[in-house]
């Protein structure tokens, strides 16, 4: 029953979740440097509560930054499977969105959403740190709207 108690608890839980997004350090190529630079002093990701974690078991956000090749795609899938729900994926940069400028290459996966479901796409080559911070803010807005307790999980 969608009562007052359930919705308020859900809002409280969503506020908790959005204020401490721990992301997985997954820096594949050039976008990885902008990811590190975003965690640096000027555009600080830590003010959103986001700290980098080394293992997917402790992360709830995976920022796929950089080109994914066929050899790497299977590992990306394994990393995604290891994350615990609720989990989100941001695809950063045009190589992860759609293959980027390597369209005629024989070994580049044209878009990481062929192997994992993506929540947010950030265009750019590489995207500015402000764009990544904006993406985290949009993800936070998405998390606030989620009917977290009222969905039946598969």
């Amino acid at each position, binding site marked *: 029953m969608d009562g007052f108690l359930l919705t308020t608890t859900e809002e409280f839980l969503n506020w908790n979740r959005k204020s401490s997004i721990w992301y997985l350090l997954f820096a594949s190529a050039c976008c990885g440097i902008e990811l590190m630079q975003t965690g640096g002093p000027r555009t600080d990701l830590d003010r959103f509560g986001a700290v980098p974690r080394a293992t997917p078991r402790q992360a709830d956000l995976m920022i796929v930054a950089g080109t994914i090749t066929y050899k790497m795609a299977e590992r990306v899938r394994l990393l995604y499977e290891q994350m615990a729900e609720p989990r989100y994926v941001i695809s950063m940069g045009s190589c992860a969105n759609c293959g980027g400028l390597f369209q005629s290459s024989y070994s580049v996966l*044209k878009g990481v959403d062929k192997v994992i479901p993506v929540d947010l796409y950030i265009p750019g080559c590489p995207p500015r740190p402000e764009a990544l911070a904006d993406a985290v803010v949009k993800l936070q807005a998405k998390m606030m709207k989620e009917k977290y307790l009222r969905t039946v999980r598969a």
Partner: protein
Amino acid sequence: MDVQSQINLIKGKFPNEVLENFATGTFVNAEKLKAICQFCRDNEELSMQVLTCMTAVDLGDHLELVYHLISYSKKHDLVLKVTLPRDNAVIDSVESVWKTADWQERECFDLFGVNFKNHPDLRRIMLPDDWQGHPLRKDYTPPTEYHGMSHTRKNPLIPEGQSATTENSNG
């Protein structure tokens, strides 16, 4: 030491194996390549201590292997080239002369399909182990899918059935 004197020095030791010269080096016989490389490294006046780069070029009807050598103490460099047939490209490995040839020859094997005899560990380095074909050859066609992941991505700006041109792919 300029290029012509270096070639004359090699010709002095291997008179029949040095073929046509060009501006920066010379073609040599494929069977004697390893002996010539050993001589280039050990000889006092040449002392080519370093193999800077080892690569191959696909010229349509044959393959050409290119070795760039350099000497840090004498400050001169040399290029050695070898021609190999396309379907049966076999040559001796120079890994015992310069250790860097190990990975460079593995890359050449992976991308061109050149077989190196007496190489300690010849397997694919850049591509997954079950990849079919050698990509840098001119007659290579990429597969349509790999392990269930399709190779192309539909461009939403281009209407169905057409290919990308400057008119319809710039938005």
